């Protein structure tokens, strides 16, 4: 029942998002455009199928991915404040982007021409590469230290990489800085239909990997000793679920920029809605809630009626932070709920 309502809301928000924008359309027109009817002008058709729909698909996938990654991190680290980026994945991505925009771009324009890559693809390659490099470091460390230390190590990796980005920014020209800043606002509009298969495969792969560990993730909720006494191989579960979370968070950051708050807000809201921490229920719920929140944030950032596009990252924070506060107040006592 609650799932049905969630699914309907997500579809509803998606449809609204397809209708609203700098050029509003009626729902009928949107459906016509999707089904390829005749009564619609080619320009309108193109706006809907080539701009709005990939953007909606991106928002759906990114929202599900970040929410699931956040849930995994909260479970593995047994910490309500853990987000998809606790292992420094977003810092790694921003270093990659900073290198592309501030170091490579001014000197290596020939590279772009020779490899026939657009600037956009280069940014995606840079950030995804950076994300996965930090992921490798974090996963390598995860086998050597305990969970709490790993949390701190992740934070320190973030700070270190963030410092490198600052140094790069300090030596960069203003226009390059602006390009980097634009990336760091987050944007769902950058994934074209050509890039979508890679984006979708990575995210669906990450979600499928998560699905393999729903039961052992439940066991991790009661601590690693208990989990092991239930026959769980905690090291393996931790490694692969962190791998899944990092693929999800890294991919989204790579394609859309660093998008905060969805990863914390969606799991909390889902726990509040479903009153459970069982991952068999919570993961699908979180995917739907994440997708819904993500679409809503994108809808707001398109600022229907205004001419400007607001930074997505600011909108997710504006929506996400109150959601977390309300969910926590309703749960009354986070410390008891989260040990």
């Amino acid at each position: 029942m609650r799932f049905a309502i969630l699914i309907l809301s997500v579809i509803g928000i998606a449809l609204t998002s397809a209708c609203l924008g700098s050029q509003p359309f009626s729902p009928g027109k949107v459906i016509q455009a999707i089904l390829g009817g005749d009564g619609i002008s080619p320009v309108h058709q193109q706006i809907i199928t080539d701009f709005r729909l990939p953007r909606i698909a991106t928002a759906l996938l990114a929202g599900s991915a970040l929410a699931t990654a956040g849930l995994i991190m909260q479970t593995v680290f047994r910490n309500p404040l853990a987000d998809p980026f606790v292992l420094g994945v977003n810092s790694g991505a921003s270093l990659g982007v900073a290198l592309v925009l501030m170091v490579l771009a001014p000197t290596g324009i020939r590279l772009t021409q020779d490899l026939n890559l657009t600037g956009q693809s280069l940014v995606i390659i840079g950030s995804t590469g950076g994300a996965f490099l930090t992921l490798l470091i974090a996963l390598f460390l995860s086998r050597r230290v305990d969970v709490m230390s790993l949390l701190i190590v992740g934070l320190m990796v973030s700070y270190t990489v963030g410092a490198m980005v600052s140094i790069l920014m300090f030596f960069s020209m203003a226009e390059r800085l602006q390009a980097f800043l634009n990336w760091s606002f987050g944007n769902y509009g950058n994934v074209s239909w050509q890039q979508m298969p890679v984006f979708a495969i990575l995210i669906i792969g990450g979600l499928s990997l998560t699905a393999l560990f729903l039961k052992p993730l439940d066991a991790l909720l009661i601590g690693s000793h208990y989990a092991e006494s239930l026959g769980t191989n905690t090291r393996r579960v931790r490694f692969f679920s962190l791998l899944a979370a990092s693929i999800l968070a890294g991919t989204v950051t790579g394609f859309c920029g660093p998008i905060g708050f969805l990863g914390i807000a969606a799991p909390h809201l889902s726990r509040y809605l479903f009153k459970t921490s069982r991952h068999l229920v919570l993961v699908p719920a979180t995917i739907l809630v994440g997708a819904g929140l993500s679409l809503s944030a994108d809808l707001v950032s398109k600022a229907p009626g205004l001419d400007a596009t607001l930074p997505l990252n600011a909108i997710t924070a504006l929506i996400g932070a109150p959601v977390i506060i309300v969910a926590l107040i309703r749960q009354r006592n986070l410390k008891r709920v989260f040990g």
Partner: protein
Amino acid sequence: MDTRSHNVELACEKLDVGYSHQGKTETILSKLSLEIQGGEFICLLGPNGTGKSTLIRTLSGVQPAIRGEISLDGMPFNSISPRERARQISIVFTDNAPVGMMDSFSFASLGRHPYSGWLGILDQHDLDRVRWALDVVGATNLQARQVAELSDGERQKVSIARALAQEANIMLLDEPTAYLDLPRKVGLMRMLRQLSHQENIGMLMSTHDLDLALRHADRLWLITKTGELIQGLPEELALNGELARAFGSENLDWDPSSGSFQVHKDPCMQFTMDGGGPVAFWTRRAFERYGYGLTQDESCASLLVSIQDDGKNPAWIVRAGDDIHQFKTIPSLINWIRNRS
């Protein structure tokens, strides 16, 4: 229960337990040769920091042994898959709150993990076992409540239900009574002993409640201050002085005749007493609190106490040398002892 038709035994041979970190090992207990049989309730006693928890974690397989062999039903530990081991050994520790939101039934259901498929969906038999486990610990009425909202005692019950739902033949408990008040400690201990006998589960439970352990355990494992582990029946260890050796300290003696701790006796401060019943018992407590020890020998006692108890208004006559003091109330008696010592 058919799965427990034969006794499963958890045993270890020349086992060293402790910690090993970056090539350095710290052995806490060594050369342990022990066994837990089905249906026996063993209490593990010992002062703090002597390795009770380490031993329990090692025997449960969540911490590797430093040296030696642990076997389950005659099979070496490392030849048993984690899933199979989970069907044979369950654990209950002091700290057992799950994070996030979970109702008690889901929490107890985690005990079915070693039996369920990859999604953890429970079949009818699984559900029956969980219901049985909650029922047997008296937690059926708690099953819909969030674990985070339970009291310590309730949560411990549900945690034991989780372990019972695991249908293991061996249950290892590390200070499960630690946060409970006395009546709940007694209740939990009784329940565990009964379950152990009824379900033929071999239970090992570490505890600091010496008195409760002495009353309930079938056998005791006693870790001494020097790091030895002594096994025996409670009465045996009480009478042969091992308990006194393990638990005595500069300020406290373990007194086998009362089965409890006594403030260390000063040989100059002895008293004799005649009279009996509760008044005598509590009078003795009062004297002991202020450093006096009861003796039968009038020649070495500095105080001679006699109690006149007509059942309503007790009175005390205390002779100290040539002085004779009479007291009508407990406060006046205690006031006098306190000023004297």
